[in-house]
């Protein structure tokens, strides 16, 4: 038996989210863009720990995945925290439009963008 029960350390990330593994909006994509709102910036002082860190960090727009990487959080935890903050109006999320992968105009735009890379 290992000295430490592996289940304990696996549980720990979710203590940050009061045990919830599913974000309020559980469909929040990991590439969703997150930016701090005026309300979020103003109420920074009333937020604690990771929530405050996210509001500080997202003064510059970035993806949920970037938030997770920069704050050293698990991606699942980050989705929960960002969804909470968005529900409270502290951050604004910009999600990819539905079915972008069926949108030929968008795909061709990405093709042109890649072709411009030299």
């Amino acid at each position, binding site marked *: 038996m290992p000295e430490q029960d592996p289940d304990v350390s696996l549980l720990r990330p979710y203590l940050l989210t009061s045990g919830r593994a599913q974000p309020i909006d559980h*469909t929040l994509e990991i590439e969703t863009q997150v930016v701090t709102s005026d309300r979020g910036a103003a109420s920074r002082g009333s937020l604690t720990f990771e929530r405050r860190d996210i509001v500080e960090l997202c003064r510059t727009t970035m993806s949920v995945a970037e938030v997770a990487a920069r704050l050293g959080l698990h991606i699942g935890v980050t989705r929960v925290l960002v969804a909470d903050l968005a529900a409270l109006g502290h951050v604004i999320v910009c999600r990819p439009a539905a079915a972008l992968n*069926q949108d030929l105009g968008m795909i061709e735009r990405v*093709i042109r963008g890649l072709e411009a890379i030299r």
Partner: protein
Amino acid sequence: MDSKPSAEQQARPVRQRPPTPVKIVIAGGFGVGKTTAVGAISEIQPLRTEALMTSAGAEIDRTGHVPSKTTTTVALDFGCLTIDDDVKLYLFGTPGQDRFGFMWHDIVHGALGALVIVDTRRMDDCYPAVDYFEKAGMPFVVGVNLFDGVLAHDLDDIRWALAVNDTVPVVTLDARDKLSVRDALLAVLHHTVRRVRTQQTSNAT
């Protein structure tokens, strides 16, 4: 064709408008060059985050006991590219291990397509990714990574070994080379365009 910005978009200052994110998934076995490929073309130094993946314990299942769930932490490497003022392309390098369907859905959902990188010395490693994308109906391209610039096998042999459909493009790439990675990503997008056109045609008839 470009869509014209709406009046609402024009009224808002450009800098405050978050870009529309799109993504391409880069999959394959461990050490196959996913992170190298992301790093070769990403504008930012590839970032790493961790995800908890839950999978059913297949071994225990077979003995007739209640299937236990195992949870594993896996690394997810990613980078991004600015396509234009409004569009940002994310590249997610996903772990290719088997039995992680739960998290794969989260990563893959909504992707424009996928590039499955193959190391011909360890072809088995990419089977889970190929299986997953076939089942998920996600357009994907097989990219054979030329580690030393030499293709050890004929591409048709590789296609046969992977048992992929004839419509799935098999290309070569050097994961260290920016333009080579760009071309592999373009192959993915052109494949997606063909798939969408085919679907639209069959829906129309």
